[in-house]
């Protein structure tokens, strides 16, 4: 009886997992030396294009990329824009005009994780479902005045036991409306597993940001299943 109850849940989870195989979800991982827990999508772009060599808190960062494959393509599409050829040409322009180096490019999630673990300041991306240890998973904030709203209180979402047992994770995308006082007023799930979404919403509603003159709309990506 107990098992029958679980079946619809497993079916939903499997369905979402299948969708993710087609369009890979990515998560951003960082070496333990990086202080920040969150990074804006704009910052991700500027770090990987070597326009910025440090985060807003002053921490040095060094990007590491994957050479090809669905995770790399998803990252390009989601955060950098353009094709891999465009990106390679961009880096080659830096290299041959004396304005920078080619960032490290590795062939698999496992290699990226291993590099990020041992390299101070390293920041990379892997499939959202890759199990990672010894690195930090960064929450990516999108849109709104994210650059101006500092997160003061953060409550980690609870990873539902059933999904944890089945080793099923993923990334949930949320849209938040942050009140001028800093409280999170509204949280809407934009994408991801609905069960994980519920857990994420429950946690994020307790978050508190710094005060501001106006209301802020922001987007977040919260990964489940692979925290160190």
């Amino acid at each position, binding site marked *: 009886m107990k098992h029958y109850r679980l079946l619809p849940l497993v079916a939903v989870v499997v369905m979402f997992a299948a969708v993710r195989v087609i369009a890979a979800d990515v998560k951003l991982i960082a070496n333990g030396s990086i202080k920040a827990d969150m990074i804006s999508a704009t910052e991700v772009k500027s770090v990987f294009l070597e326009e910025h060599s440090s985060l807003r808190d002053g921490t040095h960062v060094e990007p590491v990329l994957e050479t090809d494959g669905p995770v790399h393509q998803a990252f390009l599409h989601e955060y950098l824009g353009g094709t891999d050829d465009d990106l390679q040409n961009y880096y080659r322009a830096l*290299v*041959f005009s004396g304005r920078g180096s080619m960032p490290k490019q590795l062939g698999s999630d496992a290699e990226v994780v291993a590099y990020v673990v041992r390299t101070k*300041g390293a920041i990379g991306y892997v499939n959202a479902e890759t199990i990672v240890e010894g690195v930090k998973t960064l929450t990516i904030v999108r849109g709104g005045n994210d650059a101006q709203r500092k997160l003061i209180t953060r409550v980690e979402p609870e990873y539902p036991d059933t999904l944890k047992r089945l080793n099923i994770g993923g990334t949930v995308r949320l849209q938040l409306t942050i009140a001028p006082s800093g409280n999170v007023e509204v949280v809407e799930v934009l994408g991801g597993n609905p069960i994980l979404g519920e857990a994420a919403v429950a946690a994020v509603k307790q978050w508190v940001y710094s005060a501001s003159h106006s209301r802020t709309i922001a987007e977040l990506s919260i990964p489940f299943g692979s925290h160190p």
Partner: protein
Amino acid sequence: MHKRILGLIFLCLGLPAGQIGLQAQEFKLLDRTVQVHGFVSQGFIYTNDNNWLTMNTSQGSAAFTDFGLNMSSRVTDKFWIGAQGYDRNLGQLGQYHPSLDWAVADYRFKSWFGVRGGKVKTRLGLYNDTQDEDFLRAFALLPQSVYPTDIRDATIAHLGADVYGTISLARHLGAISYTAFAGHRSDSIYSGYAYLASEFGLYYSRYGGLQYGADLRWNTPLKGLLIGASRMNQDLTGAGKIVNPLSPSAGFVPETERSKTDWINQFYGEYTFAKLRIDSEYRRFVNDEDDLIGDSVLLSINSDVRGWYVSGAYRIAKRLEVGSYYSHYTIGHVASGPLAVLFPDQTNPGLPANHVYDKVITARLDLKRFWDVKLEGHFMNGYGSSVYPDGFYPQVNPQGFKPNTTALVVKTGINF
């Protein structure tokens, strides 16, 4: 020449047959990673009439080779060093005399403020600092109205320093990147300017001077749209020897050249959307100079060179990109002084001697990730023969110029 063509054919046939891979190299030095990158390209140009770019192109010429090799290393989080050697042969220019292309020590205090010093590539417009690396683009030759390859020395690098940075703008207004530079320009005596001067019996032993300026570019909130502007001022001197046409019996006498006014303004925009890239630039170069023997000014020339282009390229398949551009170049000058009679004023840009209008189509095939082949057609009107170089030189066109030139350019290159 035939050896070069055979080499080119061998390269084209040989590389795809084998499973050759080419990638950047790295090694450790003093516990630091050193990256090694390089490129080499070989071109062939055939023209129907006028000889172009100092090559004997009307017979077909493969005297169109260049290569570069660089090494760089990140010493600390903020400190980066590197250097690149470059060599080329373009008809009568370069002649395989290697040069230090850039050698830079770069310290980035913050993302919005960094300093680089040494021999630094000059940021001027979209492509000045990457003009030698044609593998970054669909085209074998950049629009010559704005990036004349025969006088690359004039703008390519300065021995001095830059300050630079990128500032993210609030309210999602994009980002501004700035570079301000100052330094010394030093032309090779194998450059187009010295070669053109030799036509008038003037042989430079050195040419160069102070350059300073700035570049400002805005990555706008509209995804893929970049706009910018650059400015460069120069204070140049040249020294050499000349046979004074007013007293040829004296033989060679020392000659000096001094610029009174010398500046470049450049405005540009680039838009990329998926596999499409469109860009356009405008450059105006104004030069007012005196040529002296001793303290006597024999010639004063005021030149006004204006160029612009509109270019588009589209990748129609993973390995195939096509493109086209229209390049518009005009030159005018006014001369005064005892030798002015030898350099009649050129003020009508409509005359073929005062312009080059170039319509271009190109196709680029990426045989491997590191290896491309380009086929390009240039349909030019005008030859812009003047006191300033623009691709067409009287020395290699002793029969005189014809108003139209059609050129076929084939170029292949590898990079790692």
